[in-house]
C-alpha cells in the first residue's frame, strides 16, 4: 500500500530522495576553493582544470546520458575559442560579451550539426563526428588570415572583469572566473539531469529502439541535448581563449577530443561528477609527469585506458560505487 503524505506518495518520495543534494557534493565544491589558499602557485593550472572540467561535463551530457560517442567534440570548444578570441581583437575585450559570442557560435554550429548527428548511430556516427572535427581543424588551418593558422591567434587582449579584476599572471581572476562559470553551469546541468528531459536522455542511452515505441521523439531530444552540449563546450572554449589569451589549432584537434573522452570515461560517464573527477585526476597527473616525453605519457595513458575498460568499466566513480556497495554488503552480514 502506498503511503500518502504531504510530501507525496511513496514513489514520489523515492524519486525525490534519489535526486537529492548529497553532503559529499557540498564537500566537493568546498574543496574546489582550496587552491586559493593551499596551492596559490597552481591557480593557472586550476583554472585550466576548471575549464576542461566544463568541457568534460558537456561531453558527458551527450556520451553518458544520451549515448552519443563523439570523437570530434573539440570542434565546438575550438570554434568558440576562436570566436571569442577574434571578437576580442576586432570588437572589444569585454569578457562577458566575449563569452556570449563564443558560446553562441558553438551553439549555432551545434544546432546545425545536430540535424545530421541525430540521424546516425554506431560507426557512421563516430565517423561523422570525427570527420566534422577534422574538417573544421583543416579549415581553421587554411583560413590563416582569420585564425593565424598554425601560429595560432595572437594579440588577444581581455579587459578586466567587471572593469576591476585584471587577468593577472597568478591566475586568481582566471580561476575565480572559470570556477564560477563551471559551478553555475553545473547546477543547471544537474537540474536538467534530474528532470523529465534527463530521464528521456537516459532512455535513449539505455535503449534507443524502445523510445519511439513509447511515443518519444528521440531525434528531437538528441538535437536539443546536442545543441546544449555544444553551447557548454563553447563556453569552456571561450573561457580558455580569455584566460590564456591565446588560441591554437590544437583547441579544435582530434587530440583534444580524444583527451576529454578519456577524462569522462576515467571518471565514469553518466554520473554527473564523472567528467569532473576524471578531469582533475588526468590533468593533475599530466602536470606532475609533464617532464616525460609525450610518447611515454601515451604509454601509461594507453595502459590506463585498457585497465579502466577491462576492470573499471564505469570509471572511478563506478568503482567507488561498487566498492561502497560491497563494503555495505559485508558490513550488514557481519
Amino acid at each position, binding site marked *: 500500500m*502506498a503511503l500518502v503524505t504531504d510530501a507525496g506518495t511513496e514513489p514520489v518520495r523515492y524519486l525525490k530522495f534519489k535526486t537529492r543534494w548529497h553532503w559529499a557534493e557540498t564537500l566537493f565544491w568546498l574543496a574546489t576553493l582550496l587552491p586559493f589558499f593551499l596551492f596559490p602557485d597552481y591557480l593557472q593550472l586550476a583554472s585550466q582544470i576548471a575549464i576542461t572540467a566544463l568541457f568534460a561535463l558537456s561531453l558527458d551530457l551527450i556520451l553518458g546520458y544520451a549515448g552519443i560517442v563523439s570523437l570530434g567534440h573539440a570542434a565546438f570548444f575550438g570554434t568558440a575559442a576562436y570566436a571569442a578570441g577574434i571578437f576580442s581583437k576586432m570588437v572589444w575585450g569585454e569578457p562577458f560579451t566575449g563569452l556570449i559570442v563564443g558560446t553562441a557560435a558553438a551553439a549555432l554550429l551545434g544546432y546545425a550539426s545536430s540535424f545530421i548527428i541525430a540521424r546516425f548511430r554506431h560507426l557512421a556516427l563516430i565517423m561523422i563526428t570525427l570527420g566534422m572535427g577534422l574538417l573544421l581543424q583543416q579549415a581553421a588551418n587554411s583560413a590563416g588570415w582569420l585564425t593565424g593558422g598554425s601560429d595560432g591567434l595572437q594579440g588577444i587582449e581581455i579587459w578586466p572583469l567587471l572593469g576591476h579584476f585584471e587577468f593577472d599572471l597568478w591566475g586568481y581572476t582566471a580561476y575565480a572566473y572559470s570556477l564560477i562559470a563551471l559551478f553555475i553551469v553545473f547546477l543547471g546541468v544537474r537540474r536538467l539531469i534530474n528532470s*523529465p528531459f*534527463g530521464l*528521456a536522455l537516459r532512455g535513449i*542511452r539505455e535503449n534507443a*529502439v524502445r523510445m*519511439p515505441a513509447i511515443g518519444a521523439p528521440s531525434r528531437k531530444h538528441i538535437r536539443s541535448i546536442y545543441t546544449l552540449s555544444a553551447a557548454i563546450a563553447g563556453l569552456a572554449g571561450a573561457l580558455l581563449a580569455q584566460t590564456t589569451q591565446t588560441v591554437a589549432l590544437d583547441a579544435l584537434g582530434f587530440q583534444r577530443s580524444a583527451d576529454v573522452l578519456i577524462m569522462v570515461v576515467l571518471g565514469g560517464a553518466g554520473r554527473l561528477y564523472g567528467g569532473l573527477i576524471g578531469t582533475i585526476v588526468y590533468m593533475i597527473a599530466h602536470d606532475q609527469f609533464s617532464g616525460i616525453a609525450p610518447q611515454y605519457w601515451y604509454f601509461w595513458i594507453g595502459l590506463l585506458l585498457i585497465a579502466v575498460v577491462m576492470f573499471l568499466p564505469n570509471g572511478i566513480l563506478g568503482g567507488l560505487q561498487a566498492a561502497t556497495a560491497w563494503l555495505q554488503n559485508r558490513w550488514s552480514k557481519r
Partner: protein
Amino acid sequence: MIASALKTSGLSKSFGSLSVARDIALDLPVGGRYALIGPNGAGKTTLINLMTGMLRPDAGQIVLGGDDITALEPQDRVRKGLARTFQINTLFPGLNALEAVTLAVAERRGVSNQFWRNIAEYRESIDEAYEILAKLRLGDDCYQPTRELPYGRQRLLEIALALATKPKVLLLDEPAAGVPHEESGEIFEVVAGLSDELTLLFIEHDMHVVFRFASHIIVLVGGAIYTEGTPAEIAADPGVREVYLGKRHHG
C-alpha cells in the same frame, strides 16, 4: 456497425526477391481480441513492424480509427493510440521499472522536454506510472533496476510500458515468449483483464491460449493471410491443420 480500430489494405513488403508481406488486408473492430498465428518465418513480427512504422511498406495502406497513418513516424503512431510490445525484451536495463514507466507516461503527457523542474514534482505522472505497475503486480519490484528483474516480470514490464501510452490498439508480440508455463498464466490474466475498449492483436504459438482469449484468428503463412475466422472455424479447417496445427500436433 462496429467501428474499425485498425485496418490495413494491400500491405506488401519484399527484400529483393524475398516477399515478407503479400497484400495483407485485415480489419480489427474496436474491442476485438484477435490472434495472429502461423508457422515460424510466416511474417508475423514483420507485419507488426509494418503496422507500427518500424518498416516502410512497398505498397498498401494502414488506417487507425479513421486516420491514415501509413506515412507517419513510429512515435507519431504511438501518439495516435497504436502501441506494441516486443517479442524479445526491449527494455531500459539501467532504469528501474518506476522510472521506465514514468518516462513513458511523461512522453505521453508531453512533458518529457521539460528540463527545469525535478522529476519528483511531476506527481501525477509518477502516480499514474505506479498505478499501472501495481495493476500488473510490479509494484513491489518497481525500484529495482530492470536488468535485475526476473524474466517473467520483465515480460510484464514490456506490457506496462505499452499500456503507459494509453493505446487504443495494442499489438502483443508473443507476450509470454520464453516464460515457463507456470508463470505465463499471470501474464495472460493481465491480458484478459485489459479494458474492453482496448483492441488487441496478439501473436501466439500456444493454441490453448489462443482458443481461450481470441474471438477471431488470422492465420499467416509465407507473408500472406492463409485464412481467418472464429476459433471454431479455424480448429475445424483441415488446411490450417496441415499447414500449422498438424505440425504442432506431431511436434
